[in-house]
């Protein structure tokens, strides 16, 4: 089964996943009109900032067992067995924040949403873009990610790729280029900049 996989070493911090996610969960599904909607659509994927100002796309892991689901008293959170996706039912949600407290990753937010009853703030989280998947489209965040930090594939395929990478990196005597020399150069400079500040202070 395909799922969204995060490759943090490839995140360049452009935030296009956030804009695409918000658009995909808007009423109109179009960026130009989505930014004029009320309530304003919001992203379910959240870009964090690392110690060296590097980006990290933080999204729901659809855990199993899911702490949010266990914490939800009205039973508004359930799992779709086929897709392993954890959903919030906005009609049942009582906006109590228990799920957000239970979530180890901080990916559940509270706000009004096109999917919820008007004027009601509800728990909002990643739904794996099920609507898009039913149309045989990949999740919005994956579609716009051009640096390969978000992929939609079978977990075993991604792990095999990673395993091969590790194996190649220890191949004796052969220097296999890893990642992007450009991005490595940029990050080296950024790290040095921050290290200089820390050393100076």
């Amino acid at each position: 089964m395909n799922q969204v996989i995060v490759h943090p070493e490839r995140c360049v911090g452009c935030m296009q996943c956030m804009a695409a996610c918000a658009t995909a969960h808007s009423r109109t599904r179009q960026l130009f009109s989505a930014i004029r909607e009320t309530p304003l659509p919001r992203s379910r994927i959240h870009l964090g900032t690392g110690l060296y100002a590097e980006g990290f796309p933080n999204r729901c892991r659809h855990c199993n067992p899911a702490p949010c689901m266990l914490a939800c008293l009205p039973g508004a959170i359930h799992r779709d067995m086929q897709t392993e996706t954890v959903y919030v039912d906005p009609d049942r949600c009582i906006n109590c924040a228990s799920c957000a407290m239970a979530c180890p990753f901080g990916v559940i937010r509270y706000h009004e949403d096109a999917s919820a009853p008007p004027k009601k703030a509800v728990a909002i989280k990643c739904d794996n873009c099920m609507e898009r998947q039913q149309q045989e489209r990949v999740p919005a965040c994956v579609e716009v990610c051009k640096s390969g930090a978000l992929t939609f594939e079978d977990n075993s395929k991604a792990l095999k790729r990673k395993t091969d990478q590790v194996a190649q990196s220890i191949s004796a005597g052969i220097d296999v280029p890893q990642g992007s020399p450009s991005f490595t150069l940029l990050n080296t400079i950024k790290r040095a900049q921050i290290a200089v500040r820390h050393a100076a202070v």
Partner: protein
Amino acid sequence: MSCTYHQQTITEDGQLLLKKAQTDQIETVWDRHQAQLPQCGYCELGLSCRNCIMGPCRVDPFGEGPQQGVCGADADIIVARNLCRMIAAGAASHSDHGRDLVEVLANVAKGQAQGYAIRDPEKLKKVAAEYGVETLGKDILVIAGELAFAMQEDFGTRITELTLLKRAPAKRREIWKNVGITPRGIDRETSEMMHRTHMGVDNGWQSLLLQGLRNALSDGWGGSLIASEVSDILFGTPSPKPTNVNAGVLKKDQVNIVVHGHNPVVSEMILMASQSSELIQLAESKGATGINLAGVCCTGNELLMRHGIPMAGNHLMTELILSTGAVEMMIVDYQCIMPSLGKVASCYHTRMISTSDKARFPGMEHREFHPENAEELAKALVQEAIQNFDNRSRIYLPVEPVKAIGGFSVESIVGALGGSVAPLLDAIKAGKIRGAAGIVGCNNPKILHDYGHVTLARRLIENDILVVDTGCAAIATAKAGFKMPDAIQFAGPGLKDVCGALGIPPVLHLGSCVDNVRILMLAGALANALNADISDLPIAGGAPEWYSEKAVSIAAYFVASGVYTVLGPMPPIAGSLNVVKLLTEGLRDVVGAVFAVEPDPEKSAILIRRHIEERRKALGLGFHTL
């Protein structure tokens, strides 16, 4: 908001005012930088392109996603085009500033610029002669008119080579000619740069970058140079003067007016008005003991250089200066004026005035200056500032000012040396002074405020390297106390001797950011005296805290003129290792100098010392191997 003020700035006034700003709930440039993190990696790498709307496009640095824009431009082309557009914007800014001064010069000649005058007729005649304007027996205003006209030709298309290029050493002009980067017209090069970066024009990343260098040269030997020379003609050539720096220059018992921006056309008029006895009396009638004019950024540097007007702070201090609550009026012209200032001022009684027909800001009142109304409008504004003194509530001036000496022009340096650069060359030849370095550029919230400038300057003078600086860098080292003759205590023994004998500081304030051309002219004069090229000299440049497009143009004209230049922050070029390699290595064979990027100012100092020793060796002077 962060409470770690010492992680934001090394300055005491900055740290204390950051605390004040936080108490007053003022959002600063540091807060906004934090809110932007993480910044877009495509843009940081220079791999995003918005030049046409088949796009916008970006190239995946990991090689799996798109490797070309819709038009087919690859990473090399996109990075080169983006960098070149930064140069064009920087060159355009300096050159437009220069054009405005030439316009005032032309208006003075026509008698249509009340309050302005030719304050340095000798320099007028000298520059006019360079432009082929006959000066003998001619009225000064006629010369001014003809010079203004000749300079306007430099901006156009009808000449094939900028007039003041002849100040450059013959060897340098030969290099430019052979490489094909002799700048023709000031606006022409900027215009051609924009043309070449349009979709479907120049798609050779090397030829793009060469035009980038030519465009930068049209700034350094054209727009900025004209700006600096005409400023001297209109307002006087700087000579050393004592002054004070940091937020402590604001006075608790006086009407404080702060000028901000770059062009002395407005600030000089404000200065004249603030010295009028009638207005000083008005200020006294309001309970103030006088009118205190201070500067921030480069328009402040222009006044500091010519009149010893005190300097309240550099780029990152501009919001914090307002948070003292002690500024009755801030008057801005253009460049580097953060659009946030109006909002900051709204928390205090400070009145914010914008003055340029080409620069408007939210939360500022627009009072447009033109040569014909400048004198009158300046008086009106100073009067309104005085009236605002009554509205002052609690103020906070946390520090005492630091003393400094500013106002070193090429003319005044040569004067101090007894009429020629020979004594300076002798000191360099003897090894008492190893060489000279220019520290230039801005502040940047990515860099601990002033740490880059101050650390680099300290290490260089310790190494017997004479430092000349401009712009925000010059303000940083002044605040750190390096611009007093007694700062020779921080210098190495040789530099200490030489500066001690001349009674000058080891770090010389050469002016605003257009005044980087003074450094260029000094380098040219040294090379000419040695019958050498600029790239042969034991000199270097550093921009440890740069942020602006103007700084890109400055760095590029320094390198294209043969000066090794070390940048602190990385320009957006890492997306193309070909471009990186050309700029940091390849250019050595093209123009005899390269860029380096080094975020640590301690290490930048080593790079500069090493370069200087290599040049000494090549010149047959005594050298050390590092």
